[in-house]
């Protein structure tokens, strides 16, 4: 089951409430997305930690239902 942009946004916002999120469906197939996420929670953290926070918000869907989500993170 593929996830929609809205579903992905909702999951991220639920665990990172102050997140500003921009998601693109790269191929129009609801399967290859790119997401740009900024939040205060990322401040002072390494890129690996920042991406892990995003992956955790997706509750195990990354690498499963969500095959391809390219992530860019930044602090606020």
């Amino acid at each position, binding site marked *: 089951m593929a996830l929609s942009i809205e579903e992905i946004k909702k999951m991220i916002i639920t665990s990172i409430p102050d997140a500003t999120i921009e998601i693109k469906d790269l191929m129009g197939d609801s399967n290859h997305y790119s997401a740009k996420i900024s939040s205060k929670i990322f401040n002072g953290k390494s*890129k*690996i930690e920042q991406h*892990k926070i995003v992956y955790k918000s997706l509750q195990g869907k990354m690498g499963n239902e969500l095959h391809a989500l*390219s*992530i860019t993170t930044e602090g606020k």
Partner: protein
Amino acid sequence: MDVKSEIKNIIDKNDVCLFMKGVPEAPQCGFSMALSNVLKHLNVNFKGFNVLENETIRQGIKVYSDWPTIPQLYIKGEFIGGCDIVKEMFENGELKELLINKKLI
């Protein structure tokens, strides 16, 4: 040997190790191809470990680094990142700098 020790062994034996789908000569996923091309471009010797040939490692590596996706790059035993992070580090020059500092290129 448990999977964790097996992975540690692979990473310890190879200064630059890329866990990927397929092999560097024939990657089987766009993300694995992208990282393999980055390393080739930087002219660094690396070991490409094909997780499609080893289901235990394929699952184990995700637990090892607490990272849900493949490819994964390790340099001198340290997890550097997946496709997005490594590409970013390549583009801003950090990856090259790291490899030079570790005397790998």
